[in-house]
């Protein structure tokens, strides 16, 4: 949803630059999540160290977007949809950066799991969870770029599926750990990895909520379907 058609073409240019950076950052984060998932799913190190190093790029892009948001607010005093757009881009940048952190953390833990070698749960289930997340993220970004409110609401509500998967995996991993003491280390890391993915789901829902704010000018009501029950039956 690149704002344009301002009398000041330099203002259009600023907004476009920011929006292009959001696209770049989003693509980078997608790549990070995909890469972390691949190593885990194949139980082979597919460039985990590279992934971990790439997180710096994520941080830098986020910082650039925030800096530019400050500039635009100070110099152009954006109003109405323009102000929301700048605020949303800043917020989405921060959300994407956090998602990047979870991808990096997942890579770190995957390295331990690979060394440990225990095959506690079918990693394909974790891979499925990640694939669902990537689809959600794709939709959230499309909703952002096209200003599609309905798609944003759909994405936000889809997070409940991630919660369900997480709850099921959580149980399964703990069960496997209780019958297989050799797998405790991998088990603990897998618990954290699935938790990372669950958090990434929340963040994607957060992006969707920002899109809603952008298009509607008000916040979506706070009720969001939740189905993460891991803290109740652990």
């Amino acid at each position, binding site marked *: 949803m690149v*704002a344009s*058609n*301002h*009398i*000041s073409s330099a*203002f259009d240019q600023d907004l476009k630059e920011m929006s292009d950076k959001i696209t770049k950052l989003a693509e980078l984060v997608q790549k990070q999540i995909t890469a972390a998932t691949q190593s885990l799913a194949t139980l082979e190190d597919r460039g985990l160290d590279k992934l971990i190093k790439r997180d710096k790029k994520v941080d830098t892009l986020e910082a650039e977007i925030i800096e530019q948001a400050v500039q635009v607010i100070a110099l152009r*005093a*954006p*109003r*109405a*949809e*323009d*102000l*929301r757009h700048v605020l949303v881009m800043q917020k989405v940048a921060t959300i994407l950066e956090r998602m990047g952190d979870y991808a990096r953390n997942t890579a770190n833990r995957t390295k331990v799991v690979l060394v440990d070698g225990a095959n506690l749960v079918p990693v394909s289930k974790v891979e499925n969870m990640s694939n669902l997340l990537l689809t959600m993220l794709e939709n959230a970004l499309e909703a952002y770029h096209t200003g599609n409110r309905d798609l944003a609401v759909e994405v936000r509500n889809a997070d409940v599926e991630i919660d369900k998967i997480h709850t099921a995996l959580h149980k399964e991993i703990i069960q496997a750990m209780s019958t297989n003491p050799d797998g405790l280390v991998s088990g603990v890391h897998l618990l954290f990895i699935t938790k990372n993915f669950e958090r990434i789901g929340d963040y994607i829902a957060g992006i969707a909520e920002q899109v809603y704010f952008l298009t509607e*000018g*008000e916040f979506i009501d706070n009720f969001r379907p939740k189905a993460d029950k891991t803290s109740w039956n652990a």
Partner: protein
Amino acid sequence: MFDSNEKSPTVGNIFAENPKISARNVTVYYGDKCAIDDVSLDIGTGEVISFIGPSGCGKSTFLRCLNRMNDTIDICSVAGDIRLDGEDIYDPTIEVVPLRARVGIVFQKPNPFPKSIYDNVAYGPRIHGLAKTKDELDDIVEASLRRAGLWDEVNTRLDQSGTGLSGGQQQRLCIARAIAVSPEVILMDEPCSALDPIATARIEELIFELRNDFSIAIVTQSMLQAARVSDRTAYIHLGRLIEVGEPSSIFTTPQHDLTNSYITGRFG
């Protein structure tokens, strides 16, 4: 969003709870050129309402209707109904001089009389017989200059000419002159357009202080100023009142396409 192409009614609440001025279906022509097109709006008691819109949209014209300043322009004709406390101000029995004491005006260009600072402020109270003694008149002059935030700068040279003041001081002098006759409504047409940020802030602070005692209608080219000083903001476009609402919604979620284009600086 409301479509910009059709002639839609004003978006937002044109009514005030406790109207000081009620304008209904006001239409103004200069010769055969329509400058205000069927505008209806209340200005509440103690309310600050700001008018924004592109140059030439009719802001000054509408403001001038409210104390019949347009009467001084030969080719100008005003139709519709404008009431002050329920009384039709265009009724033939209404005298404009006392009307203009009740509804004062401050123009974009400060226009002090070529008289002393004291006489500039004392002029109105004198012709309206508001002071019985010299002491009373002195009090009115001092109180008005204080409220306008000018007293400290001029109290040692009240006998000097008002035209010898700086632009910002002249503007505050004109405001002192306007409030000296205890008006009920003050109309301000871009009062800060020639002022620096400090003088502007002073005038805005003054508006803030006056807000409870007077109704204030202010035309401004500064959207930030409109947002800062007013209870409601009205957007005028080509003589039509497009939208009116609280600044917190007008400047964040305008409802009409035309308002949106204007406040976000887009081609409308």
